[in-house]
């Protein structure tokens, strides 16, 4: 068996695996890449044809024996093919690994096709795309069956059967239906997994007869057509009643992918936690909890090609006994300069870890990533770090010196080394409730929301620490500005955090009043049962108590139902403790009384106007409840001139980011398809280069580092992001020197609220009749009320 024994076996021939193999070849290590697909870099092969591949992050140098520069997908793939040849990297295609056994020095890798490979070390570079699920029916192996679609334009006049019910299936079906006969096969009766915007588009196409869709149907088998038939294959479908045979050219199975997580865990690798997007525990040399087994690339949490390639190089260097610094070392060094003071980068990193409790339990690799995405900023004494009322896009940690938080009531809070601030806005998505001013010798670590949210998702220790700080601060700020720390600590022990999915209830009318709820993110509507169903009486936004009006001693049960309009979180303390507090604290009594009066008045006003509740529900169910700025058109004024769209296109490279005609209407209010600038922008959730940002006024925008992966388009529930070819912005000098990008790349575009125009949003500015306005979620009640009185 000695010919099958390698120094290192590399699973996955993507950018990370290829780069590792090339380095291993240079280092004269015996190696093999085991790639499950028939070609190298399967993820990149699956990109859209002629996609412009970007080489973000720009600052990071490439460290690999294989070339990579921004360019067309085809050029990138060809460069890698050449790299494989030149470096003599060894690859075995169609070699999917199904199990790994043994330990360092004697791993054994079982192949799906049979046989095994033995290796002293193993590198997992499997990416996160997973292996596409196949149909698993007889005939699945015919060449007519594919699991992806490279380009819809490549097919014309074919009969194509698409199996699946997710976004990918629908998008492929719609794209192919333009030039082909398409039959979409769905195992269920509807499309619960797909985005609403896709389902709507599909229904329209179905109504117009552009394609066919069969429901509650499964695939029985696929076979070659008998001689003499015009189409090469037949697919046999099994609907509820009778079997149906469809002649076709091609079958596309879009059944999702089997995530690699389970496979990786089966090998013995530990992950940070149960959540699906958590990461494997890795050392700073990419070694997992299994000695001799390394993980690099997207699977290790590095979502970009250049990072993946660098890691491939570095892991081999480590293996061959050359512990080099990571390629991002100089970048990190520059970042940490104010903190270095003669120290090494690693020492500075441990200093951060030791002093900042939020990151105390982070793995070294995760800490590096965090600091790379953050900024270390010295702030002069007395300078304002942020002001009350500004939207936030980062959280801060005090690395050195002091920071003062200015609250309305009570003394300013003094923060010292290691302490976190800005967590309120991080959680609520709303503007800062308090301002922050730098004290003497202040040095801060500023981390973008996207990065810290992702970290909190995948690192339980970070999540729970931030929550703890939040609870203590919220209790002080909202309830007991003057209390002693011990009192607050004691109260915090009975505090709970509740997560409510959109549409679920926090409590129902008639429930006993046992807890006091403070909404910390999202929004809820309060409604009363009527003969015609629930009628909304109020809207409650993050940062407010939910239904304190109902909390008078005389009332024992809830008089309203609190229902989340978007995913929301609430903090609660038990009602008995609250009453105790109340009886001993006059300031609190006054505060609660004022809120009670306001809420009661709001209920009464809404009740007096029956239509207002309906308008409120309409606005809420269309995302206005989480909007910081949303375009609302008054149909009583709109003359349909499309000046708003024209203005948007004219000020944004010819691509309008709003679709006036699309979108729902109610009571003559129209919500066109256009960005809501959400409090917690869904689009930001998973952007590999962190290209989506928010400005102090709340505008969410995408910068030019977008790599066009389409994640945000998929995440936005309101369907407002389009992937469009926007001509690159090339400076005059670059143009003269003929440098810089010359071809248009397909990138994500959406409304940026005309942040660069002094005159403000062009759409509103161009509307001749005053029909187009932009509102904030807080205006929603008054909009509902004026509307209800304007239209009867």
């Amino acid at each position, binding site marked *: 068996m000695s010919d099958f024994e390698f120094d290192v076996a590399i699973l996955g021939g993507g950018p990370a695996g290829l780069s590792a193999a090339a380095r291993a070849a240079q280092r004269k290590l015996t190696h093999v890449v085991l790639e499950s697909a028939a070609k190298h870099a399967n993820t990149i092969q699956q990109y859209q044809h002629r996609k412009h591949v970007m080489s973000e992050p720009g600052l990071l140098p490439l460290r690999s024996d294989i070339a990579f520069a921004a360019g067309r997908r085809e050029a990138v793939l060809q460069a890698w093919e050449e790299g494989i040849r030149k470096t003599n990297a060894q690859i075995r295609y169609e070699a999917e690994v199904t199990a790994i056994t043994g330990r360092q020095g004697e791993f054994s890798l079982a192949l799906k096709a049979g046989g095994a490979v033995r290796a002293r070390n193993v590198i997992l570079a499997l990416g996160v795309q997973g292996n596409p699920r196949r149909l698993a029916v007889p005939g699945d192996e015919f060449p007519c069956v594919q699991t992806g679609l490279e380009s819809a334009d490549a097919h014309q006049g074919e009969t194509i059967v698409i199996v699946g019910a997710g976004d990918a299936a629908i998008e492929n079906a719609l794209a192919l239906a333009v030039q082909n006969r398409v039959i979409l096969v769905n195992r269920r009766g509807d499309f619960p997994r797909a985005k609403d915007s896709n389902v709507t588009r599909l229904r*329209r196409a179905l*109504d*117009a007869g552009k394609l066919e869709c069969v429901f509650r149907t499964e695939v029985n088998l696929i076979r070659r057509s008998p001689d003499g038939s015009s189409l090469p294959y037949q697919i046999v479908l099994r609907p509820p009643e009778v079997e149906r045979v469809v002649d076709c050219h091609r079958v596309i199975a879009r059944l999702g992918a089997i995530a690699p997580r389970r496979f990786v865990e089966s090998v013995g690798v530990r992950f940070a936690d149960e959540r699906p997007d958590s990461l494997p525990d890795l050392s700073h040399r990419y070694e997992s909890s299994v000695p001799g087994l390394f993980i690099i690339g997207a699977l290790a949490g590095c979502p970009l090609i250049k990072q993946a390639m660098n890691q491939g190089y570095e892991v081999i260097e480590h293996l061959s006994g050359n512990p080099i610094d990571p390629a991002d070392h100089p970048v990190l060094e520059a970042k940490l300069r104010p903190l270095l003071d003669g120290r090494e980068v690693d020492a500075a990193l441990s200093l951060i870890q030791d002093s900042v409790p939020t990151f105390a339990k982070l793995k070294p690799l995760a800490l590096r990533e965090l600091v790379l995405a953050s900024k270390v900023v010295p702030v002069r004494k007395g300078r304002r770090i942020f002001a009350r009322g500004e939207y936030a896009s980062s959280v801060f940690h005090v690395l050195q010196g002091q920071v003062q938080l200015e609250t309305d009531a009570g003394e300013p809070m003094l923060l010292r080394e290691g302490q976190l601030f800005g967590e309120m806005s991080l959680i609520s998505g709303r503007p800062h409730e308090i301002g922050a001013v730098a004290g003497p010798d202040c040095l801060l670590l500023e981390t973008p929301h996207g990065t810290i949210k992702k970290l909190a998702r995948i690192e339980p220790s970070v999540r729970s620490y931030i929550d703890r700080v939040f609870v203590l601060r919220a209790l002080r700020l909202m309830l007991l500005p003057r209390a002693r720390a011990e009192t607050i600590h004691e109260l915090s022990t009975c505090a709970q955090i509740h997560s409510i999915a959109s549409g679920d209830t926090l409590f129902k009318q008639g429930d006993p009043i046992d807890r006091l709820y403070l909404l910390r993110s999202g929004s809820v509507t309060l409604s009363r049962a009527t003969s015609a169903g629930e009628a909304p009486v109020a809207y409650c936004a993050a940062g407010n108590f939910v239904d304190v009006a109902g909390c008078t001693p005389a009332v024992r049960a809830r008089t309203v139902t609190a229902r989340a309009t978007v995913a929301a979180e609430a903090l609660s303390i038990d009602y008995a403790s609250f009453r105790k507090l109340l009886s001993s604290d006059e300031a609190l009594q006054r505060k609660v009384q004022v809120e009670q009066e306001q809420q009661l008045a709001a209920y009464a006003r809404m009740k007096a106007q029956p239509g207002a509740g309906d308008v409120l529900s309409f606005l809420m169910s269309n995302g206005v409840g989480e909007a910081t700025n949303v375009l*609302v058109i*008054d*149909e*009583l*004024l*709109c*003359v*349909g001139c499309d*000046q708003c769209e*024209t*203005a948007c296109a*004219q*000020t944004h490279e010819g691509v309008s980011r709003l679709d006036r*005609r*699309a979108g*729902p*209407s*109610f*009571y*003559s209010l129209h919500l066109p398809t256009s960005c809501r600038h959400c409090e917690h922008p869904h689009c930001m959730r998973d952007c590999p280069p962190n290209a989506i940002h928010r400005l102090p006024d709340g505008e969410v925008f995408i910068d030019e580092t977008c790599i066009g992966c389409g994640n945000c388009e998929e995440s936005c529930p309101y369907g407002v992001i389009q992937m469009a070819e926007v001509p690159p912005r090339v400076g005059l000098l670059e143009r003269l020197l003929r440098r810089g990008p010359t071809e248009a790349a397909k990138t994500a575009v959406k409304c940026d609220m005309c942040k660069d*125009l*002094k*005159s403000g949003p*062009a759409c*509103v*500015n*161009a*509307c*001749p*009749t*005053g*029909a187009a*306005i932009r*509102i904030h979620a807080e*205006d929603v009640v*008054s*909009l509902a009320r*004026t*509307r209800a009185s304007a239209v009867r």
Partner: protein
Amino acid sequence: MHASFINYRNYRYGFSALALCLGAVLAYVIDARREAQSGGTWLGYTLGTVAAVLIVYLALYGVRRRSFRSPSGSASGWLSAHIYLGVATLCIAALHCAFEFGRNVHTAAFVLLLLVVVSGGWGVYVYARYPGLISRQRGNLSRETLLEQLSKLDGRARALASTLDNRIQALVDHAIRRTHLGGGVWEQLRGRDLSAILIPDAGRGAAFAQIVSNEGQHVLIQRLAQEHAAAHDATFDARLQELLEVAGEKAVLVGKLQKDIQLQGLLQFWLYLHLPLCFGLLAALLIHVLAVFFYW
């Protein structure tokens, strides 16, 4: 919340225009006591200049509409000013010529101004009234959705008819094919339902079929009702009944769409008068000014 171009900033431009007119009238009355008024007096020249400047300013609205990066305030503010100052211009121009009219280029300019203002007034009426009508009668649905509904109803009617006999099938098919929406400008503006249907002549067979108006799907419904009255078996009747209901729904929907097209057409139509008149006015104004300076 929403503020329309009419009450923009609490009628800011309405009041400015009013003040301008009152000022002009006052000056006119005072000056008339001193000398007989005409375009040629000192005040006449002043008012003329003011009116000419206003006309040029009003025309600049067309430029503002197309400059989307303009920092000069919102388009609805501009429109508000355009409307109120437009009316004021007419008043000032009348004072300028001291109500002296004749058959000459000068009066032609005034008449054009009058027509421009009147067509604009029509525009204001239309803009203030029709969007509400359109929105209400569409009932929260876009025109695209209504058209989709129409094609769905047609699909259902065809499917139902295909289970009945050939005659009915042909009838339904013809009614669908000759359903008429939109059409030329005039047809759109009149908003009459020009749908037709081909009906066979009962006695003489298919060759003698004739096309008749099917306004409001009347003829189709009538024919289907006749079939219904002639007793058939139960399933046939039930389907026919359903078909009748579909036809009724369709009549309502077609009416809605027709009305929508008509209202949209009317919403735009005045502009086709206002714009050419504006250009005419600018030309006449130029001639008027040149004439005054060269030949007076």
